[in-house]
């Protein structure tokens, strides 16, 4: 048994809880706390990388949770990709928070839940069947809620409640689907073979993830439940889509993400939302199988929802004046790029979606960390208040500009590649109407993205500041905060210039689905 797979899941959770319950006085000062958390971050990330590298083995079956469905971990390429992104953003945002959080209360609690959330996310990435995925999906909501509520203000409490109830609403919709699909899980007569020699019960079905689908869809059609099955899958899409901020249940996202401390916003907006994306990919591509869904009303409605969301998100972001809220709306829009790509159900669009998962995670956390650095340094929150600051903080603003270009999709930054694939996938899909509406929506949204991101950069460098006197006391943020932003900007640029290794990796995942 490859119990090592459990380590990056369990260790951060244990350390997180230990931190939570430790008395405040244990650490002599803030420095002591930072040392401990820093080491735990590093160890957790290292363990995660160890599992991602594949050295820990690729399968682990734990106890039966319900019926014969075990808690089951499987490390496959898709999980590795997501886990890799999680680790990167986790480390950078964590590093950033060492300075940022000095202005907030209850730092210990923040780090505890940050760690717990990381562990849970690792579980989500490496989940090997739907029930395990669902388990970690619920934990993810619960563990990340304290990050949203962190500052304890009435606004944060309301936002957290909204976050919780939207998420649970989605989770329960998805659960309906899981209940339904359980009947059609394929029974392995000899699962020992099916799972490459791991010992398992004589006859078992477990809703595992197999590229191309693991459920017995022929039986669904035979039993006359095809319509109900489509409804169930649609509910799963909408339900998991809640986390991915998909219309009609997206309203929590622009409320919840901005009230969290900036590094937590980066983590939420860059990573947690991808949990929803991962769950959708697992459901559609690894359980139900796209053959069953292609050409049905589910696909059409899904596409339409994605298009609506992506236009709506961009428009609202364009209108929004507060920087962090603007970024949150932008997240809504960008996640729907990914959903649009997934809804096309072909290899090119799938590749584009996965690439956008990676790029958006890096870019959006970069942007949120930028916002955090500005808020920390200046105490201002509105976009137009940042005019003229670029002269005092050139490195920070250049990083922002590069990230923005990436999100708009201007070469040579990374975003252009994912959008290219997404547009190509849409055109290839041959869905009447949507095959060209999709690319048009992408273009329109790119224009809006330019409209809501670039003015900050332009005004930052060129416009006169609001008050000249105050300007003198601003300078580049501390290295702890600057470095993560720069690294993320550099990644945006590098992945745009040298995309080949990543594209090959993602292409491999897409090819396996055939």
């Amino acid at each position, binding site marked *: 048994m490859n119990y090592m797979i459990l380590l990056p899941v369990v260790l951060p959770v244990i350390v997180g809880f230990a931190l939570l319950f430790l008395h405040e006085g244990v650490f002599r000062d803030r420095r002591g706390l930072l040392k401990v958390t820093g080491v735990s971050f590093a160890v957790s990330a290292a363990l995660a990388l160890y599992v991602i590298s594949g050295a820990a083995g690729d399968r682990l079956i734990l106890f039966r*949770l319900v019926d014969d469905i075990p808690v089951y971990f499987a490390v496959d390429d898709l999980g590795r990709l997501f886990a890799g992104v999680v680790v990167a953003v986790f480390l950078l945002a964590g590093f950033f928070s060492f300075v940022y959080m000095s202005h907030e209360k209850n730092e210990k609690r923040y780090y505890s839940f940050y760690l717990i959330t990381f562990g849970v996310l690792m579980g989500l990435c490496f989940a090997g069947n739907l029930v395990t995925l669902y388990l970690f999906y619920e934990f993810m909501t619960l563990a990340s809620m304290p990050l949203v*509520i962190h500052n304890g203000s009435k606004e944060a409490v309301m936002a957290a409640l909204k976050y919780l*109830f939207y998420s649970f609403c989605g989770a329960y919709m998805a*659960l309906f689907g899981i*209940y*339904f699909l359980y*009947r059609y899980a394929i029974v392995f007569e000899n699962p020992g073979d099916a799972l490459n020699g791991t010992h398992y019960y004589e006859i078992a079905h477990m809703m595992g993830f197999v590229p191309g689908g693991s459920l017995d869809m022929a039986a669904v059609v035979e039993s006359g439940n095809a319509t109900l099955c489509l409804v169930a899958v649609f509910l799963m899409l909408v339900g998991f889509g809640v986390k991915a901020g998909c219309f009609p249940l997206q309203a929590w996202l622009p409320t919840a993400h901005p009230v969290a401390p900036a590094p937590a916003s980066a983590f939420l907006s860059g990573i947690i939302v991808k949990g929803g994306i991962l769950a959708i990919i697992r459901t559609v591509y690894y359980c139900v199988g796209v053959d069953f869904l292609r050409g049905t009303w589910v696909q059409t409605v899904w596409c339409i929802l994605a298009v609506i969301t992506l236009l709506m998100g961009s428009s609202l972001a364009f209108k929004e004046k507060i920087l962090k809220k603007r970024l949150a709306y932008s997240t809504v829009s960008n996640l729907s790029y990914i959903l649009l790509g997934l809804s096309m159900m072909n290899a090119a669009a799938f590749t584009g979606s996965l690439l956008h998962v990676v790029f958006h995670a890096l870019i959006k956390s970069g942007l949120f960390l930028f916002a955090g650095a500005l808020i920390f340094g200046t105490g201002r929150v509105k976009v137009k208040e940042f005019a003229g600051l670029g002269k005092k903080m050139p490195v920070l603003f250049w990083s922002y500009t590069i990230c923005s270009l990436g999100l708009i999709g201007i070469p040579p930054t990374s975003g252009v590649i994912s959008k290219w694939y997404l547009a190509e996938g849409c055109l290839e899909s041959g869905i009447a109407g949507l095959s060209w509406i999709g690319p048009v929506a992408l273009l329109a949204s790119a224009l809006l993205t330019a409209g809501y991101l670039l003015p900050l950069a332009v005004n930052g460098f060129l416009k006169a500041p609001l008050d000249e006197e105050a300007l003198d006391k601003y300078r580049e943020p501390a290295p702890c905060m600057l470095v993560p932003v720069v690294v993320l900007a550099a990644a945006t640029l590098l992945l745009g210039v040298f995309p080949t290794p990543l594209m090959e990796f993602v292409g491999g995942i897409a090819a396996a689905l055939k």
Partner: protein
Amino acid sequence: MILGLMLTVILLPFAGGGLLQLIKFKEKRSKQCFIFAYVLANTLLTYILLAQGPTDIIRIINFAGAKLNFSLKIDGMGIVFGGLVATLWPLATLYSFPYMEHEHNGRVHENIFYLFYTATYGVTLGIAMSGNMLTMYCFYELLTLVTVPLVMNTLTHEAVLASRKYFYYSLGGAAFAFIGLIFLIVYGDSLSFIFGGVLTPDAMRDKKDLLLFIYVLAFMGFGVKAAVCPFNSWLPQAGVAPTPVTALLHAVAVVKSGAFAIMRLTYYSFGVDFLRGTWAQYLLLCIVIFTIVYGCSMAVKETHIKRRLAFSTISNLSYILFGVLIMTPLGLVGALCHMVFHGVMKICSFFCAGAMITQAHANFVHEIDGMARRMPKIFGIYTVSALALMGVPGLCGFVSKWHLAKAAFQSGNPLAVVGVGGLLVSALLTAIYMLSIVIRAYFPGDQFDYGKLHDDIHDPDWRMLLPLFLFVGAMFVIGVHSAPLVDFFTSVAGGML
């Protein structure tokens, strides 16, 4: 030998309660020891008895005719219900000691309270071990009689009103159940509980609609105790009783006796083969699904914590009835799962609410702002029970919902699929009404002044905490490793035990 043991566990609590009235205890502590001793002894005896496994029907008294007799037996269902009750009673008794010390209004008649509190134990075991409908009916009526004084105990105006309502509702319900009993005498082979039903083939053929109508009447009659809509309003009102009563009786023993009686009625008297697919099943499913959603919605609206939990109980009892009404063995498995697991979860959250009342005099949701910092253990436990009730995987609530939903889908009954939707809507509402309390306690808002909280608010002593910790442990263990229990339920529901 077995019969003697059966009668002992039914009568011992009565005897203990009677002795309690006679003996003059010098110290409170020794009285508590005495009560706890005989409750615990009864539990151990019950365990020994249940461990003997299923028995044949043992007749005690024969009335006129071959059908009418007073008989006891132990079968799978009885083991499940009796085991649940026997496990919870000593823990609830332990909890009740500090609780009753804290009842400040001074009008609590402690000896009388414990007399009836423990007597209920015996009666409930009687229901679990009844061998036929008549016996169960007798115990069922007795249950009403011994629990009314518990609701009325404080003798406040509110308590008297509540107990009167409870009394009338229960008696009315029992009257309907009695009609069912009569028809079973007339149209059944016997009154005994036999898996698969006792109706004669002739009756099933000729009097189908009449019998279905009678089934609906009897279902609703027993359903009064299980708080089926529209007969649910006694339950939240009965929340005026001391928390040990609301927690144990109005979340487990009494209300689940109603559910248990319905299981007996459906699976052991009328028989599911007769009922499945009939209008009676559909009608009752509609009522039950409505109750599931209704109870939760009312819980969201309610701001009195104990009444909120009572509404939650209404909804959860209908989960059990929903499982029963699926009318397949799997449905019964789901129902039994939820009967046991909900018992643990709800008694746990009720005990937490009781601790909030004794320690902080907080009765309403808005009164618990910021309490979590003063009572970390209670609110930690309350959070776990909230998560379990919502059905977070890894805790026991998920397991029972899983089995209910699985049964619903496998039955192929379209209304059952709607019912799964109802379960999930109710799960969301559960999240709302449980977690809003948790969030208030932990995050009262940044303007909140912790200095406002009294200094003497703190976690209760071990007698209250020990049962709670055991329940939390049980929720985790069952949630993670439910297989042995579920296997047992499966063999019960298959009629093998």
